């Protein structure tokens, strides 16, 4: 309810951001797999103050029937924000913004899935935003990927996602609320490792072509790092459950985190309606 104060500068004289991060530094990320017992697969993600749960049900029978696809499973993504996840109370009914985001998340995830193995079925991905503090669509993709893997849906790869923004002419990873509101633009993206083809790409604000390409490159690199975090989260979950069995995902070495990447990745929501 209290009015947000616009900070004087989003980047200070030392080149640091309002929360002390460097331009290419992610907020702290914590991902957990298998957090909801009723679901076939699930995951949570905390990224700064953003907190999201994702659950996967399926493959299962699809209702209503007229949505059925004969050559593959229907990937149904429902992204919903809790009424209390935002500064003002969101109305309980799904907004047009939530419906559009559900659609772009489905597009981001679908190329990673072997949906053709389950013709006429549905794979449901339910995403609940518990707290929204920027970057919810990217965080949702990160968590939904893990939930799909946890549900045993055959996948080419996990899909990592981050956002890149801009303030005072500087590209910034993983915008916080004030940066999103008072900054100069935001570019959420998602990639398909290892080729790094892009499956989510949106943008608002003002960018030259050169800035855009630089920002996208920055995002793609950050996705590689996010991908490592995802694999680590999955490994940890399976380590707990099946100590001697972590062959589920790929077998890259998860320990060689590149330190210069630890400070990177960013995303923030496009305009809220």
């Amino acid at each position: 309810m209290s009015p947000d104060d616009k900070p004087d500068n989003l980047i200070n004289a030392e080149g640091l951001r309002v929360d002390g991060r460097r331009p290419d530094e992610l907020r702290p990320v914590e991902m957990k797999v298998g957090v909801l017992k009723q679901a076939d697969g699930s995951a949570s993600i905390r990224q700064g103050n953003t907190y999201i749960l994702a659950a996967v049900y399926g493959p299962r029978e699809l209702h209503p029937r007229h949505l059925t696809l004969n050559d593959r499973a229907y990937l149904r993504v429902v992204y919903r924000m809790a009424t209390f996840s935002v500064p003002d109370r969101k109305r309980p009914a799904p907004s047009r913004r939530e419906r559009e985001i559900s659609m772009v998340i489905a597009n981001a995830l679908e190329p990673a899935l072997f949906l053709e193995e389950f013709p006429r079925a549905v794979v449901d991905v339910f995403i609940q935003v518990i707290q929204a503090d920027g970057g919810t669509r990217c965080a949702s993709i990160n968590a939904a990927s893990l939930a799909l893997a946890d549900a045993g849906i055959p996948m080419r790869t996990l899909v990592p996602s981050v956002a890149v923004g801009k303030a005072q002419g500087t590209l910034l990873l993983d915008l916080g609320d004030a940066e999103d509101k008072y900054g100069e633009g935001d570019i959420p993206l998602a990639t398909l490792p290892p080729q790094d083809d892009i499956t989510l790409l949106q943008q608002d604000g003002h960018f030259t072509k050169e800035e855009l390409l630089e920002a996208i490159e920055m995002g793609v690199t950050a996705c590689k790092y996010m991908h490592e975090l995802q694999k680590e989260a999955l490994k940890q979950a399976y380590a707990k459950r099946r100590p001697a069995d972590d062959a589920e995902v790929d077998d890259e070495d998860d320990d060689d985190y590149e330190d210069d990447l630890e400070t990177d990745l960013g995303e923030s929501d496009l305009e809220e309606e």
Partner: protein
Amino acid sequence: MGDYSAETISHIDRDYIADLLKRGERVDGRKFDMYRPLEIELNPVAAKAEGSAIVRLGGTTVIAGVKVLVGEPYSDNPNEGVVMVTAELAPIASPLFELGPPRENAIELARVVDRGVRESETIDVKQLCIEEGKRVYMVFADVYTLEYDGNLIDASSMAVNAALLTTEYDEMKVEDKDVVATGKKLKLPVQNMAIEHTVSKIGDHIVIDPVLKEEFVQDCRLTMAIDDSEKFTALQKGGGSGPMPMSQIDEAMDIALARSKEIRKAIRDAVASGSE
């Protein structure tokens, strides 16, 4: 919430649970009058909601978040704030929950939890007035189900109460017709706390805090809201159409009364330790 029986549970399960109860046992090994382990996590939405709590009751998890807004009072109560409870059976929580507008079960859940808060006068709404007839605080407590393994009403009631107890919001004042923050934080005027306790009637037996499997085979459930002074402030028979004899209603009340102290204490303790 108990009416999936004919379609979703076999007669074998029904007989199995009934046989267990006859021997004094439950599917998860609890006594008839015992709650499942209760965990309360305070303020999981600290950055955005004025109050919030996650309650884990065995395999059932719900989250309640509280928003405090400024709005107009109802014309028949010009000096009272507004408190409203809603609940959503989010499909994330169970393969049994569906997409789409709220159905009867979700409506009943919301209305029963709301009744528990409203009838007990949990919040002193007269203290929520900013300017009579013009501006009052509106308190929205919204519940989302995250994992559904039975007894949503009790878990939701606990979560709403815990969230209300932790709520802190900006004091507002009227300045030249505008409403502005004073900079001071207020706690909600919680003057009474009614916790809802639900028992499941399965044949001749009454068990508290039913799990999903028990809800599938129950005749009905009875929910009782019990307040700080051990008064009943709301009843709701639901979860099936099975009739209940007076003797079982009496028994249900005794179980609820006996258990209400420990649940109330658990919530108070969690809040106390959270605010240390």
